[in-house]
């Protein structure tokens, strides 16, 4: 059992189906290290609660009345005061178009609603920590699908601002490696790995790890199909 005194992860649940919402709320409330700070039944409420509570993670159902989860995600990711909020999209039918769009507008990942509770809780922790991608191979495949290949000069000037080490770390992140894994692969400490990832997030004004992967593909640093 961990002895760290890290602050609890603050979570909001947004889902229009009352029984789904209450189920997830009961689950999250029962968990040590997680605090439920709000709930919402549609996209409008989700944005309102996100702005009021500034949670670490918001579980966002895609299909809701009044305003859907995609639109709510857009509004949240466009809001500078909500930079630290991670959106974890919930879906019943993982229709690629919706999931693509969610990732494209800044969601950190998605989970099926019928995912087992232990896996759902793990997903919340993974996106909150930012140390790894959620479902790395699926997430990368989805990002590959929607990022258009860079046309014109292969060299993207945005890469010029990176140190050699940072390029290596970005490449590793884009391959889906967690901080622990890339620290191993690149012979550095995990703390150093985290520092590099932090610098990368700042240099690219990237919201989170998933968005770093998007950047890596957009700049041509990593090619689709690269495993």
């Amino acid at each position, binding site marked *: 059992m961990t002895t760290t005194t890290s602050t609890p992860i603050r979570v909001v649940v947004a889902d*229009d*189906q009352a*029984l*789904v919402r209450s*189920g*997830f709320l*009961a*689950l999250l409330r*029962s968990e040590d290290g997680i605090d439920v700070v709000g709930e919402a039944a*549609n*996209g*409008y409420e989700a944005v309102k609660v996100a702005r009021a509570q500034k949670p670490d993670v918001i579980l966002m159902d895609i*299909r*809701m*009345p*009044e*305003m*859907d989860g*995609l*639109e709510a995600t*857009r*509004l949240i*990711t*466009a*809001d500078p005061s909500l930079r630290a909020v991670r959106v974890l999209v919930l879906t*019943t*039918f*993982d*229709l690629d*178009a*919706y999931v693509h*769009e969610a990732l494209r*507008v800044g969601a950190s990942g998605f989970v*099926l*609603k*019928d*995912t*087992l*509770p*232990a896996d759902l809780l793990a997903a919340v922790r993974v996106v909150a920590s930012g140390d790894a991608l959620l479902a790395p191979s699926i997430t990368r495949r989805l990002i590959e699908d929607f990022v258009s290949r860079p046309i014109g000069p292969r060299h993207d000037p945005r890469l010029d601002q990176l140190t050699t080490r940072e390029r290596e770390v970005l490449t590793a992140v884009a391959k889906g490696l967690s901080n622990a894994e890339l620290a191993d692969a690149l012979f550095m400490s995990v703390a150093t790995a985290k520092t590099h990832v932090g610098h990368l997030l700042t240099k690219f004004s990237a919201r989170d790890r998933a968005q770093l992967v998007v950047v890596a593909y957009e700049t041509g640093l990593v090619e689709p199909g690269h495993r």
Partner: protein
Amino acid sequence: MCDTSEGPTVSGMRRSPGHMRMAQDLHDVVAHSLSVIAVQAGVGLHLLDRQPAEAGRALDAIRATSRTAAGELARLVDILRTGDAADVVPVPSLDGLDALVAQVRSAGVAVTFTVEGDLDGVPAGVAAATFRIVQEALTNVVRHAVSGEACVGVRIADGHIELRVDDGGPGAHAPASSTRATTPGTESATEPGGHGLVGMYERAAAYGGAVHAGPRPGGGFRVEGSIPFTAAETAGVRPPNGSAGISVERLRVADELHTIVMRSIAAIAHQAARHPDVELDPTAARDTLSAISTVSRDALDELRGLIRRVRSDPAR
């Protein structure tokens, strides 16, 4: 183990487009009940030891939800067996759009309505889904409209049909030539559009299309969507007398959907009826919740597989 006899299937029944639409609608609702049941079962299992009261609540919720879903399925079976669904549900087609728009105008909303392309070239199922989506969007406009204006555009091109329904605001116009149903992000807190968005998504998705709804950049609300179809499909469903037909493949998909949903709901209802007391018999409660979790999750996986197959081959 529970009774695995099929019971009446869709294949034994009348198969007019009206029946198919009703089947689609009711199956959509039941599929979402499966999701609710899966969540409740999972949470109930997870909290069984620490919070037995939550597990008890989960079992109650599952029982109620499965009962409702079973009732809906029974009603569906009844409708499919008896009578002419055309009396119950008029077959929606794109020909009905004019009448629909006229209705909305008489409700006091100024509607701009444009159509581009050949409506006759659209297969019956896709046409019905498009009509329903536009109908739902316009119903919401009438219910929630602030501006008293709406703009409806339907465009057929390049093997897909696009729709857009804009509620109010200046500058509304027909859909742009893009198959991506997206709305640019906006910070404005506009008045909400409507309910029934789940049904819209489902209807489009069943044919491999997509719908998006959200506030418009200029103010107001937008529902837009795009559904693909193939020429072969169109050819296959246009009998010479002009009445809409349904492709064999669509019927097969509908049957599969019905079977998955029917079996799983029956199994879940059977399990939930056992009514184990979580405090007195936690083992039975665990077994029940575990079985329900497995059945509902398996059914959802099968439904996802079915949807993926439909989407990857729009001729299906």
